[in-house]
């Protein structure tokens, strides 16, 4: 099967999942005990105000109609207005999604750049000094709470060395990249040990495989064996873990977003929950669901690229 056909099939499989996600997101507003409009407006709201909001949210229509309306609007990225920000949700979410995606992509890049070479080193020098040092350092990095790592990074690189701004987002592309660096490193330091451990384990397993011996017997150079045969065959487990974490990080990088004042999706979700901004919660539930599906789709595609047998 060609890669495109494989991608098409996977995409088709994602459709029912996406539909279930829309039902779940739609339900958020209806799982509120009592009249959602009254809950949103608080106990002091007048009946008129509640009625206006009910109509605005379409809560007076039959459930199926409401769901279909919601689905149609969601396709156009129209999620209505935020109750607190008093403006359309679509643009707010879109602006924040850009920052969240940029941050996570940057963090993934950093962690791959660190994790892959170190995992190779660790696997080749298994149980030797280099391996122990790598494992100890990554365990340390993993154990540090991210707000703590973030503050240490700021103290060193922003206050002391003045390399990067302490927080906020820069305007020019270069300044933007600079302002995302420390947050991306904070997330990257959390992600690196996870990726490294899984890659190291599968590398060790692959290094002991018969086809590696066979390749050596055929006289291939160690570098070729390592990069072309061993690494390629060992990446799949790490990519799976990466996919899961990317989905999680897009929605869950709240602490790093707060420490660095980055307006991302995670902090928007927390604020929406605290403020009971239901339309925003609904929109984000849907967005996060789609992000997870998309991340898994990309992981599936990368499997197929790395291992053509999977396309069968």
């Amino acid at each position, binding site marked *: 099967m060609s890669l495109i056909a494989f991608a098409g099939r996977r995409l088709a499989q994602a459709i029912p999942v996406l539909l279930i996600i829309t039902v779940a997101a739609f339900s958020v507003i209806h799982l509120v005990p009592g009249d959602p409009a009254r809950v949103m407006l608080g*106990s002091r709201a007048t009946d008129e105000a509640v009625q206006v909001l009910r109509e605005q949210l379409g809560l007076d229509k039959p459930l199926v109609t409401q769901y279909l309306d919601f689905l149609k609007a969601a396709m156009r990225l129209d999620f209505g207005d935020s109750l607190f920000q*008093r*403006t359309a949700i679509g643009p707010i979410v879109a602006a924040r999604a850009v920052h969240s995606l940029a941050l996570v992509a940057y963090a993934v890049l950093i962690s791959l750049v660190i994790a892959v070479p170190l995992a190779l080193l660790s696997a080749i020098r298994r149980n030797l000094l280099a391996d122990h040092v790598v494992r100890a350092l990554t365990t340390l990095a993993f154990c540090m709470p991210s707000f703590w790592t973030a503050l240490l990074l*700021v103290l060193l690189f922003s206050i002391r060395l003045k390399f990067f701004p*302490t*927080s906020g987002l820069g305007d020019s592309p270069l300044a933007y990249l600079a302002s995302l660096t420390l947050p991306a490193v904070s997330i990257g330091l959390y992600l690196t040990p996870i990726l490294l451990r899984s890659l190291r384990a599968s590398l060790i397993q692959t290094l002991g495989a018969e086809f590696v011996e066979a390749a050596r017997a055929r006289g291939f150079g160690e570098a070729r064996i390592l990069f072309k045969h061993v690494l390629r065959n060992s990446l799949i487990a790490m990519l799976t873990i990466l996919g899961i974490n990317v989905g999680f990080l897009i929605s869950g990088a709240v602490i790093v977003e*707060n*420490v660095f*004042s980055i307006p991302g999706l995670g902090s*928007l979700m927390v604020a929406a929950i605290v403020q009971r901004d239901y339309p925003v919660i609904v929109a984000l539930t849907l967005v996060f669901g789609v992000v997870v599906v998309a991340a898994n789709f990309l992981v599936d595609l990368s499997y197929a690229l790395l291992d053509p047998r999977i396309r069968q």
Partner: protein
Amino acid sequence: MTARLGGLLALAASALFVAAPAQGEEGAPRKGGTLTMARDSEPLTLNPIGAGDNGSIFMIVQVFDTLVETADAPLPQSALATGWTVSDDAKTWTFALREGVKFSNGDPLTCDDVKFSIDRFADPKVNTSYGGFGAAIAQTECAGPSSFVVKLKAPQGAFLDYLSTFIPSIVPKALYEKMGDKAFSEKPVGSGPFMVKEWVRGQRLVLERNPYYWKNGQPYLDQIVVNYVPDENTRMLKVESDEAQIATEVPYAQIERVAALDHVDVQIENVMAWDAVWFNSRKAPFNDPQVIRALNYATPKEAMLKTLMHGAGDIANHVIARVKYWDPAVEAYPYDLAKAKEALAKSSAPQGFALSCLIVAGDQFELQQAQILQSEWAKIGVTMEIQAVDTGTIWTRWGSGDENCFTFTGAGLSSDALSDDNLAVVFFDFTGGIESFWTGWNNKDAIALVKEADGTIDEEKRKAAFHKLQRLAMAEYPAVPLFFIKARTAVSDKVKGFKTLPVKWWNLEDVWLAP
């Protein structure tokens, strides 16, 4: 959280407040430069009607003008109105409008704009969250191009104070009607010292000088960049690294550290904010004033002030904030376990009792405060369970009338108006709408005093009524008042003329930057 309480909360400055000297009175103000601020909250709307949170309010006041404005003084000062007269029956107010004022787009500000804005303020269907502030207004008219008349339904003691809030800000009628609520809320036009240049939600609001501003030579700054920096550590690092010259809400534990920095000072100023523990008097034993007294005596406020707040506060001798008619002579409850036990023995729960108290989840300060109360109250046989819940839940549950006790974050309760009236209605008038801040305190004398003060513009009568009310509340009200909160702002030594007003915001047109 002035937001959720809606305009119900209004605080006033006391005449007795000693104004902190504004920084750097030395030298003449210098024009130009960009001030960068790191704020703990962000605006949600820039429309004066519909805003209710400090994030929005403190920015709105930079963009708009009001007829009278709040400044250092406990009385509203002339702003767009150069003067006013009031009729003998105290029901007709005539304002002389300042001539030659323009909005930041160059359009002249006319009496029509004033009438339009004040009518919106007075209409409870438009002004839904602060309806009470404008409710006394019966009718308005322009008696001439610069004479604006307001007729009240009945005399209202706090009328000028309410006019000095952000809500009756003067907006350009024609433009507002053309743009509509939503668009105007995003890109408003006012006659205040600054105008909105750029607003990126979740990140920053950029204000720039209004070239048409009427105050001579002001504002001094070309531009103000207000960054939203929710994390308190990061906010302090912003001033430390000089990326910002002002950072709001210095955490108590960092006051000394930040103040010790070479180029930064921490300004600690009186504001109309306070902290207390509230009880539900519909439930036994909180309907018994002896029980409340016992809890008050068992609360070590002095020690808490020293250890938790690093001295940046005052022990409260009132159930509400220190506002205009605050009486310093009223005594706060001292920490006295013997008296606490004595009061409890005389009460309806002589053996002590158990209660659960709601606090805001994730607020370390509130948790420590609650834990101290928990261990201290245990000494007189009162066992308290702490329930930390999110902000939305806290208001829903406290508003339901089924809870025993709740505290709200100290930065959360503050007044938007300069006199006691509004807080008095919210906290002491059971019939005022939310049953005495949902405590259920239904005291006929208190209700009568609130109405007596509200119904007259005679300063002496108002003062006497509020003084009586303060004594009554301290003796009977179901609360343990804790502290009058102070604003704590990290300010770079380059910044001159910066001052936090009692209403907690700042007149940034007075601020300038030293070279």
